[in-house]
């Protein structure tokens, strides 16, 4: 089932399925290896609309809420 990165529960692994946005948005995500097909783990979500933190390969990435809401993943 496809959910946005915001709705994914913390500590759960998932695969990126869809990025909702234009080429600039995708290019920006790509620079930190956030791409369709990549396996990620959601680490945490900061309160009061703070960023979502995911783990990707050996590093972590902080992603603002609005951007995170346009990244769709599927649980493994």
């Amino acid at each position, binding site marked *: 089932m496809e959910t946005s990165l915001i709705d994914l529960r913390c500590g759960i692994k998932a695969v990126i399925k869809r990025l909702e946005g234009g080429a600039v948005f995708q290019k920006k995500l790509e620079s*930190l*290896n956030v791409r369709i097909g990549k396996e990620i783990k959601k*680490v*945490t979500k900061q309160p009061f*609309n703070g960023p979502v933190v995911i783990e990707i390969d050996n590093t*972590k*990435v*902080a992603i603002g809420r609005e*951007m995170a809401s346009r990244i769709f993943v599927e649980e493994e």
Partner: protein
Amino acid sequence: MKILLMGNPNVGKSAFFSRLTGVNVIVSNYPGTTVELKKGKMKLGKKLVEVIDVPGIYNLEPTTKAEEVALKMLKEGDLVINVVDATNLERNLYLTLQLLEKNIPVIVALNFWDETKHQGIHIDYRKLEKILKVPVVPTVAITGEGIKKLVSQLNSARPRRCKNTDKERWIKIGKIIKEVQKIKHKHHTPLEVLEELSIKPLTGLPFAIFVLFMSFFSVRFVGEYLIKYIFDPLFASYLPVVTWLSNLFGPGILRDIFIGTLINGNVDYTQSMGLLTTGLYVPIAMVLPYVFAFYLVLGILEDSGYLPRLATLVDNIMHKVGMHGLAIVPMLLGLGCNVPGALSTRILETRRQRFIASTLMAIAIPCMAQTAMVFGLLGRYGIKGLGIVYATLFVVWVVTGLILNKAIGGSTPETFMEIPPYRLPYLGSLMKKLWMRIRSFLTSAVPYVFLGVLIVNLLYFSGIITLLGNLSAPLVVKVLGLPKEAVAALLMGFLRKDVAVGMLLPLNLTMNQLIVASVVLTMYFPCIATFVVLFRELGAKDLIKSTLIMIFAAFLVGGLLNMILNL
């Protein structure tokens, strides 16, 4: 010959740079931009070659200033050492492939090679070398492992000039990874547990408070230790020299300028206001120890990888005041000195953010020089005196931020950044960075203190201070509740905040007056060095806006504080 060090951010490039180059490192801006380049020299065979540390970038698309500069540097350089994080090979290879498409020899350093073993990552670097057709050397920059081998292979690097489209690159990378990398399942290390704890809000916020508390405690401890055991004894043995000079000069203009006023017939380093007494004592014995301690602690925070975590934790708060989490960096740097603080606002993407960050820093962040002096003045009143000063400044920071965020149109871009794993800082690059910062403090602060002390003396002689004191008396006396003589200190604040605070000492002010003076001195105007940098960074128009906000806010807050404290 020019060798370029290029790679993603957080791949250990500066440790690499420290390993390759000697002591003489120059930091300069790329012409016409605000992007900093570190340059050093390295011995290659019998020749001395230039090594340039290019800012960390993820790709070569010219979307940011750093990427634009990197592209231009590629045309000037003769060879690229591409530093790659071996624990993140896939992402790092994107830049590698882009570099191989350029007409320049490339050699690849697989850094953090030791970490790959702990992480269960196995990379067949010989196979990678065959696929990429350029030398690939596993390295551990911190210990120096592999560096010699890398240097010995510099001559065998050749340009590749292969061609790929954006899509092809990722497909190629996928194939390479499949062939050269194997990952075994591994257990979490204690450090990784700490990594998660310090980013989750429930545990991360207490941890952040603990880290910041420990940092400031260490700064105070190290600073006080240095003063007590090194600088005060040093100046005690220097006292006979100035006393001898003072007697030699006798009363008159020479003594007044170089030695200053004698207090009860003796030289008093903090109050005499002479070039060779106060002019040396304030920057070197009172401020330098804390500046040293501060940059040492900050360097450890930076190099360990903690700051991106702090930035993520405070991102939501920072958005309320019109910035994103990363803006915590200029604020922390500003606590050391507002000049590097102002320079570091460059890491923020938009003009709006840079304006807000610069204004907030200049208005409400006291630099270490000033803090050292305020502690000296108000320290004896303990938390009551110091607490009010710092609490007021914090409130000013929040309120000004909230207002600016509402008043200036536009929105804050969202956070999107890498949070690298924790790593042990490398002593070599830590010390190199500390030295560069201390050097820039000494070369910029000491001349201004000298100039300031000289000007104050001249203004006193010419009677201008008395005149200005009389003119601004209504404002200073009625609104701020300070004596007329404090005007001289306020004027001095344009040049050096630390000397300005020091000038309050002989006035025998009450605690409340000291609090008001300390707050107003912090807020009303950045020191001249910061002013110059802000002028470069913001331009004249925004700087005038920012300055007007500061002056208005300083007198408003100073006046209010004076009223409240004396109720």
